[in-house]
């Protein structure tokens, strides 16, 4: 992204590490074995060749440094990727997670040797229980989607224990939901019924009523919804679902909007997963690692994924397998390195800071809504929560500018594009989540860029069709990539 780019004129992507360096170079000195030697295993069990790159340390460092410069992160600029909560990631959280006392611990060390980490994880369980209003928590899931799977398997297990699993085979999912919701329901062995959203973008209680016929296991609800909207009938929905004997599953991906303002448990949810990398600001890492804790009522607590951290009467902590657990989701205890960061984030903010977080996230989203209203179509023109979904539909005429083109043009303005073409129920969707860590000036700068692009769309559509013009690389042939997949380096690939 730098203007001083020695690689600018090179077809940088054409040459991988495998195509660089030279035979015999190496990046790190490793010791051989100088003690007594035993014979190697029989040759039939051994590898003959290993084709890996051979680079000096400097070459390797320059290569990956160059790669990093071809990336845009939250530290690079505004990154309003809707539903992903790309907020600033505090550096102190990285620092403390890397303390050797945490980082060097072996997962199978006796629990007496890991009391520091366990105490922290136990406290984190307690904080998340307080924040969600659901008192039982497992930190085991590795990411939101795995937390969803845990939650739905817990529902399955409870229905099985009640003898109702044979008839409760369906899971209801609103059409505005993340794809992970229906995919999760399938992985848990349920059939998915999609609920069409009402004209206001919310769940239509009448539609729900028709589906609740005793065959439903659960309704999965993202709150606030992926449209950035509150569900006005959520308490009524919860009561209705429970009256039918079904469960209310909460997708906590958008918790940032209501941190400290409302709790899933109080609203009638039975089980919810959180995305710590979103709400609690652990770095997204180019696509992980995340963490997806699952929180539930007492009714579901025995089925939580293993392990959970439990405090004994003497104050010592242990890793415990819940009595009728759905089992393990990972080999060990969860993503401790991510959980420590989330813990540090909560401790650095306290309740007042968390409430300021949701307030400023919602304020920024609504401020942005008013700045862009009139320039882009707003399918649901009402107060929003943490994000606002516009449509690029108005820009289609006369120049056939699509949301895709608008997104690409934003790159030229030094801004990461928002989420596009999601939720699926909005034509040409632009899903924008500024988060609380963008300043008023940054939100205004984003709005100015969007308004300038709307103007360009009218005046010079070709400018948008060819965008980005100032990125490390232009638009790529995604169709060819999928038609003739080239998925690994091969010697003849240059």
């Amino acid at each position, binding site marked *: 992204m730098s203007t001083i780019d020695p690689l600018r004129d090179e077809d940088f992507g054409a040459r991988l590490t495998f195509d660089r360096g030279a035979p015999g170079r190496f990046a790190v000195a490793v010791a051989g074995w100088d003690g007594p030697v035993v014979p190697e295993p029989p040759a039939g069990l051994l590898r003959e060749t290993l084709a890996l790159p051979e680079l000096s340390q400097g070459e390797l460092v320059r290569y990956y440094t160059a790669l990093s410069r071809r990336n845009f992160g939250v530290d690079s600029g505004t990154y309003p990727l809707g539903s992903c909560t790309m907020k600033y990631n505090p550096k102190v959280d990285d620092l403390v997670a890397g303390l050797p006392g945490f980082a060097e611990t072996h997962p199978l060390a006796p629990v007496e040797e890991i009391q520091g980490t366990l105490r922290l994880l136990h406290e984190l369980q307690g904080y998340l229980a307080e924040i969600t209003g659901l008192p039982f928590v497992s930190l085991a899931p590795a990411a939101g989607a795995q937390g969803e799977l845990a939650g739905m398997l817990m529902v399955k297990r409870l229905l099985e224990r009640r003898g109702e699993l044979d008839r409760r085979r369906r899971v209801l999912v609103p059409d505005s939901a993340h794809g992970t919701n229906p995919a999760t329901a399938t992985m848990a062995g349920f059939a998915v019924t999609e609920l069409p959203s009402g004209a206001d973008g919310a769940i239509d209680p009448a539609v729900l009523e028709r589906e609740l016929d005793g065959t439903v296991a659960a309704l999965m609800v993202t709150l606030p919804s992926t449209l950035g909207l509150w569900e006005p009938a959520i308490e009524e929905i919860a009561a209705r679902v429970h009256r039918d004997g079904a469960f209310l599953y909460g997708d906590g991906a958008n918790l940032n909007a209501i941190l400290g303002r409302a709790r899933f448990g109080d609203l009638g949810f039975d089980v919810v997963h959180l995305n710590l990398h979103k709400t609690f600001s652990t770095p997204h890492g180019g696509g992980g690692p995340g963490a997806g804790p699952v929180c539930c009522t007492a009714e579901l607590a025995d089925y939580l994924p293993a392990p959970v951290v439990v405090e004994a009467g003497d104050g010592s902590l242990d890793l415990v397998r819940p009595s009728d657990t759905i089992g393990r989701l990972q080999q060990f205890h969860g993503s401790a390195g991510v959980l420590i960061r989330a813990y540090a984030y909560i401790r650095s903010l306290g309740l007042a800071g968390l409430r300021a977080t949701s307030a400023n996230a919602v304020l920024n989203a609504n401020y942005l809504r008013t700045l862009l209203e009139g320039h882009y179509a707003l399918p649901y023109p009402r107060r929003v929560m943490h994000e606002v979904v516009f449509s690029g539909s108005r820009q289609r005429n006369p120049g056939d500018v699509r949301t895709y083109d608008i997104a690409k043009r934003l790159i030229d303005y030094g801004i990461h594009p928002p989420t596009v073409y999601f939720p699926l129920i909005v034509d040409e969707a632009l899903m924008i989540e500024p988060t609380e860590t963008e300043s008023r000036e940054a939100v205004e700068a984003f709005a100015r860029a969007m308004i300038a692009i709307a103007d360009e769309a009218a005046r010079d559509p070709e400018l948008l069709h060819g965008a980005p013009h100032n990125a490390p690389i232009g638009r790529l042939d995604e*169709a060819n990539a*999928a038609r003739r997949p080239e998925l690994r380096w091969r010697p003849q690939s240059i």
Partner: protein
Amino acid sequence: MEFPAELRYTTEDEWLRVDDDVATIGITDFAQDQLGDVVYVEVPDVGRMLNTGEAFGVIESVKAVSDLFSPIAGEVIARNDALTDQPELVNSSPYGDGWMIRVRMSAPAEIDALLTADAYRSRLPAGG
């Protein structure tokens, strides 16, 4: 957008070309335009028996995926293997080289229930 008059059409945006008891099946110009760049087509093995309305394959574009449904019953007697290496034929020639399967119909009268070109066109969104 073109919808040849000699073909029959389905509400699932497929076309059929009928020669005696054999139907050739593909997707319409409208369907390929909606999908965008087609990147993968999965069609059944020759010899497979299809029921009316049964899903017989899958078509994928970069950002979407759709099932292919057989509007008629019968046995698959040919499939277009060229689509394996060149799925883009569905975009460039939806009624020609982009055909998908040929089926020997077990009840050719089923054709009568399908749409004519005009009837199909009238169902499309305005401008289609």
